[in-house]
């Protein structure tokens, strides 16, 4: 087990290097530091001196890969690739274009993101599985078919409409909770309840439909017929027989996103004014702050790879037949 995890972690290194190289190409070769300086300083009427100054201040006045002016090891380390890109590996994210320290920002903004993403995720899965099991109970009846059409209909509504509609109905028409904002104290639930509800409702269409397919697949198996022949109740069959057996395909889709919950949701956080990583990224994209985007890409990839490893480990827990080697 431990050996397996260590091997997976070693496999992750080339992937992270690939991610690093890709972002480096995107951010420094497609878009040269000169272009960055120009768009940061305002696009027209920028003197060459101003560009040089900006590059010097922000540490972009070095060669990309190889510094021929420096001797020995410094010819590799005193380059943009080393100072800006490779340092991400030791979680040194440096400063954003506006001069703030990214590492502090990220560690502070992570928690509001998690406070929103984790409950949405857990409640969402619970609701989806329950709805799907209920539909499977009525399989091959008009009710089942109507439910599938309803799921497809729910899936076809853009996420934005769920958010806008939820804000309008719950906050404006019924005045139940504040429309947006965040409070770190014990009052936080007031602000979180609406985005969590919206997130859960928006996910029902796709989620419940997917789980229904999984459960249907299982309900055609022999052991389900045996259970019925034994005279077990429908509830027992659904929850004690079908659900545990459908766990493996469920885990594949679910566990991989758990670490990424730290990243938060771009849309939710910006609509509901929650100061998490999602709105941090959105602000960075809108103000073209590439240092932040670069760091977030890297963090996101690490969390994803971590999720993949977690998925494999969770298999052994869900199904004792699975051995990792």
């Amino acid at each position, binding site marked *: 087990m431990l050996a397996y995890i260590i091997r997976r972690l070693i496999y992750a290194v080339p992937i992270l290097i690939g991610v690093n190289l890709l972002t480096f190409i995107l951010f420094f070769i497609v878009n040269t530091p000169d272009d960055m300086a120009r768009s940061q300083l305002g696009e027209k009427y920028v003197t060459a001196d101003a560009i040089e100054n900006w590059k010097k201040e922000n540490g972009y006045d070095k060669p990309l890969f190889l510094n021929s002016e420096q001797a020995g090891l410094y010819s590799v380390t005193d380059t943009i690739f080393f100072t800006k890109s490779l340092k991400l590996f030791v979680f040194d994210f440096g400063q954003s274009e506006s001069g703030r320290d990214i590492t502090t920002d990220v560690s502070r903004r992570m928690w509001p993101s998690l406070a929103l993403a984790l409950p949405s995720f857990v409640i969402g899965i619970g609701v989806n599985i329950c709805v799907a099991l209920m539909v499977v109970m009525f399989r091959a009846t008009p009710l089942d078919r109507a439910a599938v059409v309803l799921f497809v209909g729910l899936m076809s509504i853009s996420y934005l409409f769920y958010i806008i509609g939820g804000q309008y109905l719950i906050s404006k028409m019924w005045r139940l909770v504040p429309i947006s904002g965040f409070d770190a104290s014990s009052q936080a639930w007031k602000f979180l309840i609406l985005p969590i509800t919206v997130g859960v409702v928006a996910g029902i269409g796709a989620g419940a439909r997917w789980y229904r397919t999984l459960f249907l697949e299982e309900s*055609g198996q022999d052991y389900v017929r045996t259970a019925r022949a034994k005279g077990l109740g429908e509830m027992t069959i659904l929850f004690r027989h079908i659900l545990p057996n459908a766990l493996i395909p469920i885990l594949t889709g679910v566990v991989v996103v758990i670490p990424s919950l730290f990243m938060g949701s771009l849309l939710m956080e910006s609509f509901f004014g929650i100061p998490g990583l999602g709105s941090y990224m959105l602000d960075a994209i809108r103000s073209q702050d590439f240092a932040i985007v670069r760091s977030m890409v890297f963090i996101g*990839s690490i969390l994803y790879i971590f999720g993949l490893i977690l998925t494999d480990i969770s298999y052994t827990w869900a199904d004792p037949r699975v051995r990792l080697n």
Partner: protein
Amino acid sequence: MTTVILWTDILIYALVVAISFFFWNLRKDLITRERWSQVFSSRLGMVSFVVIAFYILVALLDSLHFRDSLESVEGQASDKVYYGNTVRSALDTVLGDMSTVHERTYSAPFALNSFEKVNLRDDQGVSYRDFPALEHAGVHLASPEDKAGDIVIQSLIGLLIGLGFSVLLVGPQWWLTRHSDLPWQSAWITQVVIICIVAWMIRVGNLYHILGTDLAGNDVLYKSIKGVRTGVLLGSLATLIMLPIAVSLGIAAGYFKGWVDDLVQYLYTTLSSIPGVLLIAASVLMFQVYIDLNPDMFEVGLEKADAKFLALCFILGVTSWATLCRLVRAETLKISQLDYVQAAHAFGVSHGRIIRRHILPNITHIILITFVLEFSALVLAEAVLSYIGVGIDPAMASWGNIINSARTELSRDPAVWWTLTGAFCFMFMLVLSANLFSDLVRDAFDPKSTTGDQA
């Protein structure tokens, strides 16, 4: 009049020709025919197909661009013709005045007066505040009281015109397909309904603002219709760019195995480990910086927007091939173990021929299902990306841009609900029919599919 040919126009027509050619080639293939007739043997399949076809037709009409010639000014020396700066499309011509008239600001659906009060002066020069009359809605009415009656009469006229056209268009189809076993009635009824709605929209929409006007005074219905082209194009072009990458890499990995397989797997794991939105946002930002620093490359504003749009399709395509590639690789691995492929190897058939004759035909169902599934996902993604600010250029009509500019309007008091309604309805219809259709296609083509009613 001079035609303006945008890159996306060429691509969409090329795409339609290519797909028609593809199906023309497959018409003799019995298994494919069987599967398609399974898709179309359900009424739902017929209806959703007709709706999608209608959207594609609108997109095609909206892809014929031209610039009107300006009337020659008196004293103009040469015979040279000058062209206006606005690019119009065949769709604008069909829709009539809806495309050109503007009000001052918001107005409610079917309203005769503006939504906001302004300072007005009466005949004696005394100023007062009131809702000003709209400049282009109900101007043919003798008095505002006639509005309700007039709307009914105009709607009836519109519907009658629609029925007339329906007889012309659906009649021949009925004649051709009356002996078929497939549920053509549903297709005819859907067509009649769509034609009637279109005729009604054109008739009434040119006299009133059916869905009101937005902040800048543009007709909301017109803007929503213009969003159709963007949605359809993005959905199909991005998938089209993704397909060759995913299929060729997937087949190569599954067929040649060894280091090719390792490389391809490494590529798609790397790519899919980057959060999708960030990768797209970063690529789009890079491209936008490039375009903004080189503004001289484009003659009209629309060409610049078009270039950005094409780049977005390209980026979406290049960043989203990982899922399909994984599926194709797995399927190819399985197929290349089968006896007939081994036999072909033993006979000394070349790699290219084996891939073309034995492997490609057996993975077409994966490609087809992905194409239809991706389509609706991309239409939805467009709205989100436009909200983030890395989507469609604001100069180009799109549902995402409408939602983005209208997202705070519900919190006004009284709420401005009609701007979102337009985008919502058009988007929902397209995505819903695409989703329903893709379900049916999957049921028919995927041997493992269990979404159907066989359980």
